[in-house]
């Protein structure tokens, strides 16, 4: 791999259509003649950053600041209205609790689906499923549907699945704050191992302790714009002292 940044974002703007009507009924919208009322809103505006191999970028901001949209833009699931995003290497993302898993499937089936998405060897699914569940402490649940799992169990499984493949870029959106103390310690240990191996991490969290402990730099987003981008010691006190 070259020495170029693993993630490069230049003047990124993401917009989406916002519908004025709160109703989720076609009939009501037609009757109240509000079906045409919509406006375009910017979820992110003018974001630029570069992330190199082994760096951890903590992303902080109030709810609705654009943290998850930034993660989705890096994944490529939302397209920029202006600017651009470039990533290099295998990327896995755990955005919100669902973390891209199929709730009707068992861990074994989800490993199969994940392997198919990332073009892994499908004959290796069973061994991978055993490894993933064993790390997550879910060996007894390998053939139980995910919808029967608690949020902590789902988070453990998602983390184990996404880190098992040793990605070049790992996006963690609030996933570490879900599990118990033991899981948090274990997952932070694995995150460290990945970082030492050169994985770049985008760590989105409201937990300033985790952000401070792991981040090389912290990106503070406010209403879709960069409010600050520097070391944790500089950004976090400013963020915490800003009134909501």
């Amino acid at each position: 791999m070259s020495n170029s940044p693993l993630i490069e974002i230049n003047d990124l703007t993401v917009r989406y259509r916002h519908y004025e009507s709160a109703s989720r009924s076609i009939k009501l919208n037609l009757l109240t003649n509000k079906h045409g009322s919509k406006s375009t809103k910017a979820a992110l505006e003018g974001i630029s950053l570069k992330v190199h191999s082994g760096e951890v970028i903590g992303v902080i901001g109030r709810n609705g600041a654009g943290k998850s949209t930034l993660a989705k833009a890096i994944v490529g699931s939302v397209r920029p209205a202006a600017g651009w995003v470039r990533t290099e290497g295998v990327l896995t993302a755990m955005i919100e609790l669902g973390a891209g898993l199929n709730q009707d499937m068992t861990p074994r089936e989800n490993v199969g689906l994940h392997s198919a998405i990332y073009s892994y060897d499908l004959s290796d699914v069973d061994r991978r499923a055993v490894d993933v569940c064993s790390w997550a402490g879910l060996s007894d649940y390998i053939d139980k549907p995910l919808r029967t799992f608690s949020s902590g169990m789902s988070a453990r499984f998602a983390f184990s699945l996404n880190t098992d493949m040793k990605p070049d870029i790992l996006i963690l959106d609030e996933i570490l704050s879900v599990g118990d103390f033991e899981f948090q310690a274990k997952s932070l240990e694995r995150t460290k191992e990945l970082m030492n191996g050169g994985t770049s991490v985008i760590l989105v969290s409201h937990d300033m302790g985790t952000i401070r402990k792991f981040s090389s730099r912290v990106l503070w987003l406010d209403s879709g714009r960069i409010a600050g981008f520097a070391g944790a010691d500089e950004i976090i006190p400013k963020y915490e002292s800003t009134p909501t």
Partner: protein
Amino acid sequence: MQTEIYDSRKPQDGVLGSLKILLARRSLVLSLTRLDVLNRYKKSVLGVFWSFINPLLISSVIYFVFGRIFNNYMPETRGYASWVLSGVLLQGLLLSGITVSSSALQTNMSLISKNRIQPIIISFSSSLSHVTHFSIGIISLAPLALLTNQTLSLRIFLLPIFLLLVSFWLTGLGLLLVGWFMRFDDAAYLFNASMMVISYLSPFLYPLAILGDRVRGFVELNPITSWIVTFRWLVYEKQTVEFFNIAVVLGSSLLTFIAGVLWLRNRWNDYVML
């Protein structure tokens, strides 16, 4: 090993790009289809047998109610029972297939928005899974055709092409409708009710010959009519088809797919952010 590079400056996939993706990621498409088919039968008590039993039950009821009338319009074969089963099967495929294709994107939004997986792959896999379910149901046509003196045609070997066209049609409509289904809770209900009306304006249940000229002309313009007539022509030896019907099948399949892909390309951000 080649380094995976994502660059948003690369133009978004158009129609040809989407077809290339489906071809390049065919193993993922097939894996998702397989998982979807297995999941569908795992959730059903009767499993795969439901694919036979459901259309047979509906057709039996229709046959006992309308058989005596409509058999008279088929003097050569009196094969209304198997004829109506073919209509019921295709009606089920087309109607529920559109909802399945749209809701696949909706239910898998978490998967799509958090992984690098193109929505076209999810939508097309879901259509293929629905077509597979239909193909299993087709097997029930053979014994009924034998019992009712309907000769199956060798054209049946062209069915895979027909089913591929159905998959493109369902995918296109699914992509066109998914935004409505996501934004409005009653969209699926209104759509299903409208499609039910449209499907009754097609000869899935009755022969076209019973209709007067004016109504018949109207029904013939319904694209569902062309899908049904073409399907029956492929399956039964004594059924005929006009060039117009084949052209409608080909045209509606390709145009709908193109429209769906282009629509989704412009609206995708709105759906992910909903």
